[in-house]
């Protein structure tokens, strides 16, 4: 756990502009509907990339393509140059973790347990170890508990460790989801609307948290509607409209692009399909 | 296999399949709307058969009716009585066992359904025969002889087709036609379709979802009752546990055709009946039921949406 973080930090210093994730020509069709059309995107080490677009633009669908929840109709997604495996859990193991737009915590588990589930793919103890309480199980349990507490501390939830996640306030649930994702030791973190439903104060805290995560050496890809948030935060921003990349550039470039403004203000009402 | 034998087994398969299909519709309609496997539906079928039998008893156990009177008065009355009992039972179970569990984990209504299934069987076994003048319900009860159908057959060359088979298949055809009309041409039917596609939106659009669910249970139960009467005449007897195996097979049929899809249930039922008949003819009859279940498992693995493919969306 700590190893990966240090490694990543070191890598960020030496090879700053190396590509971590590369999606090329990703297309996703549902029957006759093309939700994502030829989207290409690059995320570099230590970079925060924003993904914006009106409702129904295909942002979440694109996320699902990246994390293995959907199998893209065509196109290629590669992490550190290697093609991402097809199943969500393999994607997690390869180093891509995510949060959900509509929070999907394990509600009847405590915050600590939630984070420990995130640790699942980084632990190895099998059924025999667990049944016989062999050293491997014990060592892993101890290490996992410690690491989980560390991540809770990182997102500022130490006092809530033994609180059932369903009892946490909304903002804390969002942060817990991030802690859970971080516990999988990712290289890239995908955040799906991390500030949805938050008040300005909470949003500021979230912003600060994301910077701290970046400082750990992780790259972050974030979907957001809050423009101020995204332009404060992101190194580069892509704007997705009707499944296609409209603009890609720095915050300032995207912000001033007339097509983006038109897409947001002038676009007809499209169905919200972000809750796949 | 001689052509005659083939034809005879075809008729056997179609008759049995029609019974399955009539019951399967109940599983499919309810599942389509509330995503609940109404495990007790087999017992609704049984209640329907007993309801019809009760009408015959209350009519004074007539045995010497003319064919016209039997077909024109007795049989419709029996079917109506069966439907009344079956629909009543189904609505009661829905109201008191399933409705309070809406929104509970899916395990809860399923376990509840098993409980209802056992309860209804035992209820009939223990108490039906205690009513003065009613036969002992702990064992099979011979179903009344309906003049004009029972015991008659049509001769086609060397092959004789029992009128009870004809009745069973005809019952399926008529019921399917009615059902089609009900679902596609009535307001309640359209509300059912809407609810099955998106219950929350349906509710917002002013559809009384409770009522729609009740209609689904009622429609399924009515068809099961018709199946109960057909079963009584085709098989010759009814008993308290007739619903268990029939229910299981009918569920298999519903899955086979694509659960949630009404046409699928009909097709699945007929296919399953034919499979059983020909598996029994070609192979060892001892393994007949195994084939039916193996097919169920194969379908689930390779084509979980069933033969006619209702889309099973994981709403998670």
């Amino acid at each position, binding site marked *: 756990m700590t190893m990966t973080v240090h490694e990543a930090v070191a890598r960020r210093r030496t090879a700053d502009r190396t590509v971590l994730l590369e999606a090329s020509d990703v297309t996703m069709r549902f029957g006759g509907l093309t939700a994502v059309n030829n989207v290409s995107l690059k995320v570099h080490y230590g970079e925060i990339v924003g993904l914006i677009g009106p409702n129904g633009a295909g942002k979440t669908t694109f996320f699902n393509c990246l994390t293995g929840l959907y199998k893209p109709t065509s196109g290629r997604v590669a992490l550190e140059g290697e093609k991402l495996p097809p199943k969500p859990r393999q994607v997690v193991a390869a180093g891509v973790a995510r949060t959900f737009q509509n929070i999907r915590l394990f509600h009847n588990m405590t915050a600590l347990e939630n984070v420990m589930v995130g640790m699942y793919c980084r632990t190895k103890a099998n059924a025999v170890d667990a049944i016989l309480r062999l050293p491997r199980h014990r060592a892993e349990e101890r290490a996992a508990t410690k690491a989980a507490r560390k991540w809770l501390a990182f997102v500022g939830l130490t006092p809530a460790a033994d609180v059932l996640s369903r009892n946490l306030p909304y903002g804390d649930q969002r942060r817990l989801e991030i802690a859970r994702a971080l516990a999988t030791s990712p290289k890239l973190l995908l955040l799906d609307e991390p500030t949805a439903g938050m008040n300005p104060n909470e949003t500021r805290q979230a912003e600060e948290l994301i910077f701290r995560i970046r400082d750990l050496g992780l790259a972050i890809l974030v979907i957001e509607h809050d423009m101020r948030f995204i332009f404060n935060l992101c190194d580069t921003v892509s704007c997705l409209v009707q499944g296609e990349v409209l603009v890609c550039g720095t915050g300032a470039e995207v912000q001033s692009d007339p097509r983006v403004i038109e897409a947001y203000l002038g676009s007809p009402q499209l169905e919200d399909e972000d809750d796949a | 296999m*001689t052509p*005659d*034998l083939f034809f*005879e*087994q075809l008729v*056997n*398969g179609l*008759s*049995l399949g029609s*019974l399955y299909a009539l019951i399967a519709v109940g599983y499919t309609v309810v599942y389509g709307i509330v995503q609940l496997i109404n495990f007790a539906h087999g017992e609704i079928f049984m209640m329907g058969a007993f309801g019809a039998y009760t009408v015959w008893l209350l009519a004074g156990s007539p045995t010497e009716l003319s064919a016209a009177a039997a077909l024109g008065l007795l049989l419709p009355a029996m079917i109506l009585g069966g439907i009344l009992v079956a629909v009543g039972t189904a609505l009661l179970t829905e109201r008191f066992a399933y409705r309070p569990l809406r929104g509970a984990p899916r395990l809860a209504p399923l376990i509840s359904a098993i409980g209802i299934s056992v309860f209804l069987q035992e209820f009939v076994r223990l108490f039906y025969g205690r009513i003065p003048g009613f036969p*002992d319900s*702990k*064992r*099979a009860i*011979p179903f009344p*002889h309906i003049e004009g159908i029972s*015991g008659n*057959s049509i001769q086609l060359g060397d092959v*004789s087709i*029992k009128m*009870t088979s004809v009745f069973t298949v005809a019952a399926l055809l008529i019921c399917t036609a009615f059902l089609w009309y009900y679902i596609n041409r009535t307001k309640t039917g359209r509300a059912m379709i809407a609810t099955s596609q998106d219950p929350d939106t349906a509710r917002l659009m002013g559809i009384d979802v409770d009522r729609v669910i009740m209609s689904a249970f009622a429609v399924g139960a009515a068809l099961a009752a018709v199946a109960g009467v057909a*079963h009584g005449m*085709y*098989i*010759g*007897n009814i*008993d308290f*546990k*007739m619903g*268990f*195996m*029939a229910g299981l097979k009918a569920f298999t049929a519903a899955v086979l055709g694509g659960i949630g899809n009404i046409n699928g249930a009909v097709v699945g039922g007929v296919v399953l009946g034919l499979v*059983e*008949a020909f598996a*029994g*003819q070609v192979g*060892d*009859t*001892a393994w*007949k*039921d195994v084939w039916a279940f193996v097919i169920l498992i194969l379908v689930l693995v390779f084509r979980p949406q069933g033969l006619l493919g209702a889309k099973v969306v994981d709403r998670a």
Partner: protein
Amino acid sequence: MTKTAKAAIIAAVAASVALAGCGTRDESNSAGGDTVEKKVVTIGTISPLTGDLSAVGSGIRNGVDLAVKQANASDAIPGWEIKIEPMDDEAKPDTGKNAATKLAADDTVIAVVGTMNSSVAQPVAPVLNAADISMVSPANTSPALTKGADLNAPVRQNKSFFRLCASDDKQGPFAADYLLEQGIKKVATIHDKKVYGQGLVEEFTKAFTAGGGEIVAAETINPEDKDYNTVISKVKSASPEAIYYGGEYPQAGPLSQQAKAAGLKIPLMGGDGLYDAAYIELAGKDAAEGDLTTSVGAPVDSLESAKAFAEAYAAGGYAEGIGPYGAYSYDAANVIISALKTTLASATDAKSARAATVDAIQSFTTTTAATGDISFDEFGDNTNQVMTVYKVEGGEWKAAYTGTAM
């Protein structure tokens, strides 16, 4: 919470007031000592009293009950009162074994009548044997129960196990001979894959083919199924002259009905599991006409004892019918009671007489039982080889032929 508690208390009070109104004084411990306290000996029964075979199982209990009542009324064993302890086995081996263990633990129990299913008898018999309790079976037909796994090298399995009904290796061949004698050479067999039915058909097949007949179709049904048309069509295409069915009447009746409806108008023959009025009811009078069954002993109406039993049973006011095994059960109880007459005469308690009773039953013989002669061979099987073929005539079982099995 407290409201419910109060309501419950009020209800309890009300109920007790209501109950107090009726009832009779218990006289059993009246101060006077004018009657000598009788010693108690118990005969247990193990049969299905619940579940779908309860109709038949209750007949077994009632047969024993009748015999015990008669014995007590005539003071058959001076100084002893016979009690009956009916146990339910739900037709399940587990429950049957529990019942047996329970009976074995009761020191007053000396013998048991049961079980109905051979699969239940298999675990029950060793338990009773270990406790020296005699078990006289009215209904178990599996040859393995007395002779073990290999019929060619028979070994007695349990010293205390006796049976009155004919085992499959007697009934099957008797039926085969009868059919051959009637000139029937082509038979289709069907059975329900249960111990009784399958055993019967196997023994029938051996004898029938040995006698020059041909089995043109051998099929099975699933007793859970209701629709036998597939099997019937299949059998029909082999054009047999008769069907031999191994199984019990709940399936046999509908099978006969469906066969006749499908145009297969040939007689259906079976073992004593069919010998019940309910068979005719289920098949329908017309369909059942001409169907056959075998049963041990001379026909009921030819034996005075059998007639007397039937009358006594009818007068006994039992809710359930006599069933196929009621008469055997009655006889089984009487065999036990006869043995007890000698073994209990000198005994101080029932438990000490258990072993002697086993021996007494082994050497017991009678010619006046409800089912005719009874005596036991070295395996515990009834040596009475008289069997009767019954035929449905005019909606009733009528004796068609009586003979001695090989």
